């Protein structure tokens, strides 16, 4: 169909169907969920303070009720209450770790993309090889060597999640280098640093921001996985991973709800971020087929 091939717009329309196109309702819902999640976890200490070490041994493993919307765990703690704090910790750790990973990936990708040539080849080989390391194992190794703590978890996530960012930044910079406006700037006598700061950075930053946002669910997952294994945050601290881990014991005695709420919180927040990011990416680059591969 050369008649059609001559008109890429036509094919583009056919392909655009492949994208996850969340409807307006989906985007609004996702936005509301995220606003509630972020504002709720920020304000929680003010409106619904939690004593992390408090237990109520007279009401252990009570099923969900009006008094305890998501039930209580095997130490009688309110699951819903702790889930709010778990989300607070997870989002905090996730956001900070995602930032660490972004900075690391941005620097490596930036060096590879601006210098190109031999440096680029070597750095990308390193990235490829680290990508072949199961990042949960690497994360476990890092936590184990640094001893489980908040800082160790952030380092573990940050050091294992920068690869995709490095690749994105690098390929973006390499493709920008061939664009006419960069040539024009260089011919106009602009120095390398000036070109980088004035011309390249504004193009890379939106993509970098998107990559960071998309990384937050990954970071939350990694943190909860470490906590679930008992290698993450201190066990008394309400974190989503710790709560699911605690709930594992209750589950075998029939108290299935102890792990339900923290898991559901992860699912809902992850989906909300994914839906918003998909829309954001559509805006950012309508040509590239969006992949919602978390």
């Amino acid at each position, binding site marked *: *169909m050369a008649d059609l091939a001559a008109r890429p717009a036509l*094919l583009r329309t*056919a*392909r655009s*169907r*492949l994208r*996850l196109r969340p409807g307006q309702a989906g985007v609004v819902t996702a936005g509301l969920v995220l606003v509630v999640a972020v504002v709720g976890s920020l304000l929680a200490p003010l409106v619904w303070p939690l004593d992390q070490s408090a237990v109520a041994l007279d009401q252990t493993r009570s099923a969900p009720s009006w008094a305890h919307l998501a039930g209580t765990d095997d130490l009688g703690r309110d699951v819903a209450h702790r889930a709010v704090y778990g989300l607070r910790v997870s989002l905090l750790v996730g956001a900070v770790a995602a930032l660490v990973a972004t900075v690391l990936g941005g620097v490596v990708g930036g060096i590879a993309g601006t210098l190109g040539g031999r440096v680029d080849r070597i750095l990308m*080989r*390193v990235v490829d*090889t*680290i*990508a*072949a*390391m*199961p*990042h*949960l*194992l*690497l994360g*476990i*190794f*890092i*936590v*184990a*060597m*640094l*001893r489980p703590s908040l800082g160790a978890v952030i380092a573990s996530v940050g050091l294992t999640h920068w690869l995709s960012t490095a690749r994105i930044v690098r390929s973006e910079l390499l493709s920008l280098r061939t664009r006419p406006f960069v040539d024009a700037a260089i011919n106009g006598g602009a120095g390398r640093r000036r070109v980088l700061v004035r011309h390249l950075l504004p193009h890379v930053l939106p993509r970098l921001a998107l990559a960071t946002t998309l990384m937050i*669910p990954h970071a939350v*997952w990694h943190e*909860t*996985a470490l906590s*679930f*294994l*008992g*290698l993450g945050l201190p066990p008394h601290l309400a974190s989503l991973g710790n709560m*699911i881990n605690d*709930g*594992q014991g209750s*589950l*075998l005695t*029939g108290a*299935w709800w102890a*792990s339900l709420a*923290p*898991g559901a919180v*992860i*699912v809902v927040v*992850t*989906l909300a971020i*994914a839906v918003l990011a998909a829309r954001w990416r559509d805006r950012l680059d309508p040509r590239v*087929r969006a*992949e*919602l*591969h*978390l």
Partner: protein
Amino acid sequence: MTRSGRLAGAGAVVRRRLLVAVPVLAATSIGMFALGAASPVDPAKQYAGAAAFTATEENLAQIRANWGVDDPLPVQYLRWIGNLVQGDLGWSTSRHEPVASVLAARAGWTLLLIGVSLALVLAASLLLGALAAYRRGGLFDRALRTAAYAVQSMPVFWLGLAAIAVFALALGWLPAGGLTDVTATSTSWGDVAHHLILPVGVLAVSQAPWFVLFVRDAVAESMRDDHVLAARARGLPGRTVLFGHALRTALLPFLTLVGTHLPELVGGAVLVETVFSLPGLGAVTVAAAMGSDFPLLAAITLVTTAVVLAANLATDLAYAAADPRVRLDG
């Protein structure tokens, strides 16, 4: 051009890859060693275990000397990596046995879990993804994609607990964990298979969305390829068009991506093994991490990385074998 002719350069490709992988793996091992050296944990006390509390300072010093813990770091590193290369993976301080025997006893179960799950995921995702793509936008397509996005946002360990709650506790169909019945005196394969249904299923389901969505998108795009339209125009049966033409060509990029997705699968396996208390590498990894068992952790990480790199190489060679346009001797 025959297939063997095209693949004549496979040996050269393998050599080229090794030339790259070896230095990078070496660099990675230095990084890991540095992290281990910076660790606040005293390997001598680690080795002595509970005895460390009663051991005299002389005893600990003796252990240090035996282990060469006080040697300069480069010397320690070279000794460690030299032993690794010679097949001596070191002594596990958390399990008090050689790392090699820990791996030998455990790796098989993890490999079995990953292998069966991967086979299941591949078969299911190729079938479901292709069917969804065949009627793009149809009821099945939309249902499958919704399910995939939903499952994709569920942590695998949570999915595992949900599976235990439903299939083991509520319905009582399958055992909640372990590899054999507690009453069993010997390991029978039927029993093991029965115990592996849930873990394999959970790992497969948790990994499936990525594969299903990829296959679905690739086949959907392939369905609009000129050669697939031409196959339809020749009046070939729908099954032949879908599986023989659209899927067959969409499969090629998929092949290489399977290799890059393996690390995810390993991570998932560690979590699933923990949830179901399976005696694979997952449990010892966690125990080793709790005890800061550097030799065991480093060996597990480096060995799995080497396995993944080898698998990547294998999928790339499989790609070359599957696509007649690729020549390796060029």
